């Protein structure tokens, strides 16, 4: 026995909360994207723990897809950040107010 399943869920929930705090409280686009990455990582931990809990590989397959989506999301997100930085000279989301 390694540990009870509840402790894995608590760890994953705590990490998800930290990622949410980072995405909500920081005023810096790169840190917001990092917060999203932390949240995705927390979800993968929960999936791998569940795969071990029920001895079923479906959970691990889902983690594979989460990796792919995270890579796609981060490449497009960083390209958008670079575009907005070239346009406004800043990565503070408060400065992106062209529609006001």
């Amino acid at each position, binding site marked *: 026995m390694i540990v009870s399943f509840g402790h894995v869920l608590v760890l994953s*929930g705590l990490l998800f909360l930290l990622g949410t705090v980072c995405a909500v409280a920081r005023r810096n686009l790169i840190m917001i994207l990092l917060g999203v990455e932390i949240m995705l990582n927390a979800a993968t931990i929960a999936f791998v723990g569940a795969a071990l809990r029920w001895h079923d590989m479906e959970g691990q397959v889902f983690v594979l897809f989460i990796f792919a989506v995270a890579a796609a999301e981060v490449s497009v997100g960083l390209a958008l950040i670079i575009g907005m930085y070239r346009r406004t000279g800043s990565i503070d989301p408060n400065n992106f107010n062209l529609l006001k």
Partner: protein
Amino acid sequence: MTLYTILFYVLAVVIVAATVLAITRRNMVHAVIYLVVSFFGSALLFYLFGAPLLAALEVIIYAGAIMVLFLFIIMMLRDVNLLEKLFPLSQWAPAAVMAVVYLVVGTVLILTDPGARAPLTGAVATPREFGRFVFENHWLAIEIVSLLLLIALVGALYLGKLSRKSAAPQSEGKP
């Protein structure tokens, strides 16, 4: 308390501590380095949970590719580290209170649920059987994901070209 149990708690403490340090850094390079430590911890956790292939992929994709991409972008931007004003305390205090309430309620719910008290017993999905399982049961999803990655590549290239074209006249006008 077996050796695996102790390892799990040590890894959990390292992961949470590195993540807390990462999200509180002012300097984004430091934050990314702390996150690399956190992702290495997650990779070890995956190995402990019997997913060696996913552990390797976590190191290669998350700690390797994604974090290095972040480092490149941070180094391309000039002096953005300096003044990041945080929100005033009165603005984020309600959010913090709600987060703590969520954490306490979630922890109590999970720890009192009898289904969550089930012990995890060791099992290893070797890369060979994991690969067979993926390509026998989920080959269509793999193809769709490969298409998604291609679209992300094309989208990132297009966005890069678009912003360079639209930004060029502005940068010429600046002294």
